[in-house]
């Protein structure tokens, strides 16, 4: 016998069939079905295989806690492994595959593992597979890995859209059952900003499978009406299919909305999932309570399920679990199901009640056989339940049944309340772990707070909303509802952790195949602490995070250790309440949009000139500008570099950080943030500056120009632009708030161009209105200039990175492209070329100028030959005091040197190390490393800058440049780090 669809009842639309496939087999469900209910309606009881023993498994729950019915849904880039069939809404054309079986779900070879189970007990792998050592990676581990895991993920890219969203509210309500609805209504009517989230497609929680009435209307109708009213209120937002997965600091809740996971064809303009970050002034956790399984042999056989789940299939989905049903319960709630089963006309074989006294008087008026003080120690069957053994007063009896409902009592769903620390405590009276009602910013209500009965939950929700809004000074009247009828209110009963007389395997954690003996073994082996037991047995570590198993495992641990569950305690609750996709958490950030792009105002100019771009931080920088016929990047770069030294070139340096510094104390401020002096810098002059960190190491470098007495223009390196600005703001605001200094980042205001080369002045003069002759505008000049006959104004700096006669011209960004075009045009007859960062790098290495290749956070000024820049007279500057330490002045420190190969036909690269000539290649013999290198068309060979022990005193020494990674070993000579024009004649001419 199997499960089947009833002809009537349920919140489904039998007139709207939906076809889908399971393992390739076509099936029909109806609108309103979950994948699980549709499979059951098709008589498909066997839905998956367990993790370790590959036991046949069906569905055990009807909601988020499902450990068994996991399947891979959809195909191609939409493939989703490990989807809980209970939470997946059915849609037309859905394709589902079972998992963790080979060759098929029915015949799974690995189910033989069950036979080996005595040797596969908890933690067995820690005890073996050690010999021979080499076989672990090659044999054992691949075998284990292939057997382990669950579904198979795709390698295809996801075609769908995701996004994130922030929301703010006075009151967030998690859970849309009776409690949550009552709370939302109360708060919504009071005008508060309310957000109600529920993980299900339909709001209503337990109401949706309830047969009781509220104020004379059915629970289902009550839910519908309430939701309709809430949706009509502009101050209330109702989010179905939305799971609150985490509670974070600041009362921020993470939630994920499955916007289109139920759509056959997701609309491309709408995300499939949306991540919500909800900032709530107050929140109510109305997440309900979870029914606990009972631990008996064969409790995992398809056909055994939670009583509340069976009730949901029956009442909500119109699906019968089988033809002959038994109920095994430890408390009154099992009778609710019994009553509904009988009402639906199913054959109720027996109600086995562990309590000797049986049900509370008046609870059950049906006709089923009731076995008080009875237990089900074992269930039998392979891929479907066939019978159960009943034990009563030592007597055993076998009953043929095809489905069995179990109820071991209820545990409040308190998960979220402990994401920010703390643990629930055991209550003997409630026979479960309970949480205090009020946490800071989050309160529990309803079944989550042990309120019992529908009426109790309605009232609890309304009252809690009223109280919390009170804290926000919003007056609310608790919503009132009519009388509840037909609800069985189950009082807590003493839990039965383990059913006496078990023969078969009794599972605690279904998905991870942890059975009751594993728990005992863990205690015996010293892993009895609840956290150690979890890790040793893996109980609670599966995709369901122990929603059904944790409390039972604690009960078993308590029994095995001979203590109370209070002494065992729980493991830690952590996000995610249920698993969340990478897609949702990444939102729109992926692929090319992983990070925003920052574009130079000269970007289009560079494109026009044929630039090849390179990512530099968020910028795209022009790397080189290939001409027709140039086959390698080196050809282009050599040409550009040569041309700059021969004629002139234009390079986009707009991405340098630029900071305008004003205020009465601007000069004093600069004096404190640079290690060299700035106070006396004359107006109209630029100066190279070195900024240290407080620990004495170099932070950044750049030039700063004095435009007016109290106005400076600082440039920083591209990489550190943001860091320097933050640092200067720190200095100004935190260290020296008494100084009048004002900082404005103007990086994006200016398009900045380096115009370098012997012809640069000629070219520039054609567009600059003022005289820029050497006399009128000498080296390190800086001034505002008028351009194009007064059409534009800009800033001109006579500074040189290339070592040539050179300028940097800044023009307002919107005119950058026009100015660059004009310069190229003006320079045409002088042979100007565009050059990129590669040629720029060649030129600067030839001149021994350092960048962050050298300023890598571990160098001090003397290492780079900048010792003289460190002011000896300034009383204070950042980095002054700790620069004095012994280690920072050790003569053995790495210092900047130049390197050239002995044979110009050979080369080396950055990242190679330097060894003494003939020295053995060992770490002890390591003398330093090449920090920058390039082919220098002017020297005619590779050249490099290196940081080498005592480097500055070793010029002329022959060394070997050692690159073991690439098998390149180059005889070379250390030399002065300036390869071109050491007397600096060109740049001053």
């Amino acid at each position, binding site marked *: 016998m199997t499960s089947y669809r009833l002809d009537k009842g349920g919140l489904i639309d039998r007139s709207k069939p939906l076809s889908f496939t399971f393992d390739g087999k076509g099936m029909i469900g109806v609108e309103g079905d979950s994948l699980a209910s549709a499979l059951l309606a098709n008589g498909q009881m066997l839905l998956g295989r367990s993790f370790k023993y590959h036991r046949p498994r069906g569905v055990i729950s009807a909601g988020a806690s499902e450990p068994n019915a996991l399947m891979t849904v959809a195909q191609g880039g939409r493939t989703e492994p490990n989807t809980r069939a209970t939470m997946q809404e059915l849609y037309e054309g859905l394709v589902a595959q079972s998992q963790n079986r080979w060759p098929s779900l029915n015949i799974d070879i690995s189910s033989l593992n069950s036979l080996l189970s005595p040797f596969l007990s908890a933690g067995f792998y820690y005890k073996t597979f050690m010999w021979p050592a080499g076989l672990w990676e090659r044999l054992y581990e691949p075998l284990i890995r292939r057997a382990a895991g669950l579904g198979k993920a795709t390698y295809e890219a996801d075609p769908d859209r995701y996004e994130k969203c922030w929301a703010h509210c006075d009151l967030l309500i998690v859970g849309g059952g009776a409690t949550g609805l009552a709370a939302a209504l109360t708060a919504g009517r009071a005008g508060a900003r309310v957000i109600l989230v529920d993980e299900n497609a339909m709001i209503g929680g337990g109401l949706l499978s309830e047969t009781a009435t509220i104020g004379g209307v059915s629970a289902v109708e009550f839910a519908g009406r309430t939701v309709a009213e809430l949706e009509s209120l502009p101050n209330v937002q109702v989010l179905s299919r939305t799971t609150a997965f985490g509670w974070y*600091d600041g009362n921020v809740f993470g939630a994920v909305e499955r916007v289109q996971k139920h759509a056959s064809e997701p609309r491309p303009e709408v995300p499939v999932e949306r991540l919500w970050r909800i900032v709530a002034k107050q929140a109510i956790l109305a997440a309900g309570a979870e029914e606990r399984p009972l631990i008996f042999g064969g409790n995992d056989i398809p056909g055994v399920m939670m009583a509340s789940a069976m009730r949901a299939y029956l009442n909500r989905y119109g699906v019968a679990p089988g033809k002959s049903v038994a109920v095994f319960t430890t408390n009154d709630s099992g009778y609710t199901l019994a009553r509904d089963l009988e009402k639906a006309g199913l054959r109720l074989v027996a109600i086995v009640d562990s309590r000797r006294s049986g049900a509370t008087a008046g609870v059950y008026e049906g006709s089923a056989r009731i076995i008080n003080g009875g237990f089900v120690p074992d269930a039998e069957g392979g891929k479907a339940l066939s019978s159960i053994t009943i034990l009563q007063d030592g007597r055993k009896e076998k009953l043929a049944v095809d489905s069995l409902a179990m109820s071991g009592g209820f545990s409040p769903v308190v998960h979220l309340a402990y994401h920010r620390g703390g643990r629930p405590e055991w209550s003997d009276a409630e026979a479960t772990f309970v949480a205090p009602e009020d946490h800071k910013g989050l309160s529990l209500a309803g079944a989550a707070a042990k309120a019992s009965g529908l009426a109790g939950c309605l009232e609890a929700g309304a009252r809690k909303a009223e109280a919390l809004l009170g804290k926000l000074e919003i007056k609310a009247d608790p919503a009132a509802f009519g009388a509840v009828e037909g609800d069985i209110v189950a009082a807590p009963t003493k839990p039965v952790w383990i059913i006496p007389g078990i023969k078969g395997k009794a599972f605690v954690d279904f998905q991870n195949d942890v059975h009751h003996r594993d728990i005992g073994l863990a205690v015996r082996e010293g892993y009895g602490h609840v956290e150690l037991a979890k890790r040793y047995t893996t109980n609670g570590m599966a995709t369901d995070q122990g929603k059904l198993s944790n409390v039972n495992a604690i009960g078993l641990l308590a029994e095995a250790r001979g203590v109370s569950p209070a002494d065992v305690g729980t493991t830690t609750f952590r996000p995610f309440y249920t698993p969340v996709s990478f897609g949702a958490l990444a939102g729109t950030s992926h692929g090319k949009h992983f990070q925003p792009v920052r574009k130079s105002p000269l970007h289009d100019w560079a494109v026009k000139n044929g630039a090849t771009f390179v990512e530099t931080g968020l910028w795209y920088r022009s790397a080189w500008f290939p001409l027709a016929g140039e086959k390698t990047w080196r050809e282009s770069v050599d040409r550009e570099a040569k041309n700059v030294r021969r004629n002139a070139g234009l390079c986009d340096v707009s991405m340098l950080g630029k900071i305008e510094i004003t205020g009465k104390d601007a000069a004093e401020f600069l004096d404190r943030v640079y290690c060299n002096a700035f106070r006396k810098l004359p107006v109209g002059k630029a100066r190279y500056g070195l900024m240290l960190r*407080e620990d004495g190491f170099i932070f950044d470098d750049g030039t700063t120009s004095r435009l007016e007495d109290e106005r400076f223009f600082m440039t920083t390196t591209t990489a550190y632009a*943001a860091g320097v600005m933050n640092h200067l703001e720190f200095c100004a*605001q*935190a260290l020296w708030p008494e100084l009048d200094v004002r900082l404005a980042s103007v990086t994006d205001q200016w398009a900045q161009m380096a115009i370098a080369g012997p012809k640069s002045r000629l070219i520039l003069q054609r567009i600059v209105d003022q005289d820029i002759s050497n006399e009128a505008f000498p080296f390190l000049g800086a001034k505002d200039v008028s351009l194009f006959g007064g059409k534009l104004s800009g800033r001109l700096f006579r500074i040189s990175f290339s070592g040539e006669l050179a300028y940097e011209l800044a023009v307002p960004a919107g005119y950058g492209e026009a100015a660059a075009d004009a310069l190229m045009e003006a320079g045409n007859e002088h042979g100007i070329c565009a050059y990129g960062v590669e040629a720029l790098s060649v030129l600067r290495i030839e001149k021994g100028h350092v960048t962050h290749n050298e300023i890598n956070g571990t160098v001090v000024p003397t290492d780079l030959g900048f010792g003289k820049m460190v002011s000896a007279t300034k009383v204070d500057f950042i980095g*002054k*005091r*700790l620069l004095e330490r012994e280690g920072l002045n050790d003569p053995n420190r790495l210092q900047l040197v130049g390197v050239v190969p002995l044979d110009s036909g050979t080369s080396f690269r950055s990242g190679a190390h330097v060894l003494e000539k003939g020295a053995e290649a060992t770490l002890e013999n390591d003398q330093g490393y090449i920090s920058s290198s390039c082919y220098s068309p002017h020297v005619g060979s590779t050249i490099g800058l290196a940081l080498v022990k005592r480097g500055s005193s070793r010029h002329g020494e022959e060394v070997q440049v050692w690159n073991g990674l690439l098998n390149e070993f180059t005889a070379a000579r250390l030399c002065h780090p300036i390869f071109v024009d050491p007397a600096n004649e060109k740049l001053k001419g």
Partner: protein
Amino acid sequence: MASLIPCPHCGQRPREEFTVKGAALVRPAADAGRNAWLDYVYLRDNPRGRYDEHWHHTSGCRRWLVVTRDTATHEIEGARDTAARTETVE
């Protein structure tokens, strides 16, 4: 609660708008002894509990704040502009 920082100028903003630097310490005088400087740069109380630290509202008002936060609970007691030596904002 380091997922929202209550900026005294901008209100509650998410952590990603901020840069956190570390303990809000007083920089020693230029002529303070070597040990004072070593302490300042390297040694930390690193308390479990109440802690004053520097946060920069980098993608907001760009002010440096002193945030008083509990390192055990992440609860924020208040935040003030580092230049405004007194007032705090809840």
